[in-house]
């Protein structure tokens, strides 16, 4: 018994088709349990992934494969108050935020 989200990987294929993610500094806002974060990390991005839900961030940290640990940092935070200086990131991803 299982639930699979986007088994065709249409989401990451669409994101990959739109830009080159390799070595890009990315902030993902609304990362949830990190499902998309992991897929973007596999594309070569360096990611700060945020969500206001502490439980989801804890799950995301737990489920992050060790080989991605140098590419991804999960943080609890709000889209309305990003704790980063201006002009820090190459790419921002709003995952179901708006």
């Amino acid at each position: 018994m299982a639930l699979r989200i986007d088994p065709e990987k249409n989401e990451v294929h669409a994101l990959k088709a739109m830009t080159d993610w390799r070595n890009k500094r990315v902030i993902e806002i609304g990362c949830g349990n990190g499902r998309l974060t992991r897929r973007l990390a596999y594309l070569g991005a360096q990611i700060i992934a945020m969500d206001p839900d502490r439980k989801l961030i804890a799950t995301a940290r737990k489920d992050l494969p060790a080989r991605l640990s140098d590419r991804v940092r999960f943080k609890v935070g709000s889209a309305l108050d990003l704790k980063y200086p201006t002009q820090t990131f190459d790419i921002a991803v709003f995952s179901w935020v708006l």
Partner: protein
Amino acid sequence: MVHALYEAQRVLQPNGILFDLRPAPVHRRIGIQTESGVQEIGAMREDLTDDYVANQAVKQVVREGLFKSEKFTQFNCNRVMDGLQEFQTWLLEFTTLGREHSSGHHWLSERVERAHHAIHGKKKIIVYSPLMLRLLRKLEG
């Protein structure tokens, strides 16, 4: 919503990219997939108000010259479930997202259950979830 877009614009490099990924303002459809094909069961009745408000927020930052809308695509991000239990759990979680229409989805739950029992052999429940993805390029607004 528009304040989140302002904040993203602030932390982006000049010429940086903002991806706006979210459900398309359409109702999800439910089907049961068997070896012979997909039997469509019904469409959800969702409150799409937030989707339209989000579209307006994006239009506002484009109008203000903060971003340029460069690319757009829409695709399915389906949920595939092995059984009724997963579907019921998903439907329960869905009600917490604030997208559920006031009429609820008990009717749909019952319809899926009936169809699932009536169909024999290997089967999966599929929620067809259209997503939209927009690439917004930061401008020096």
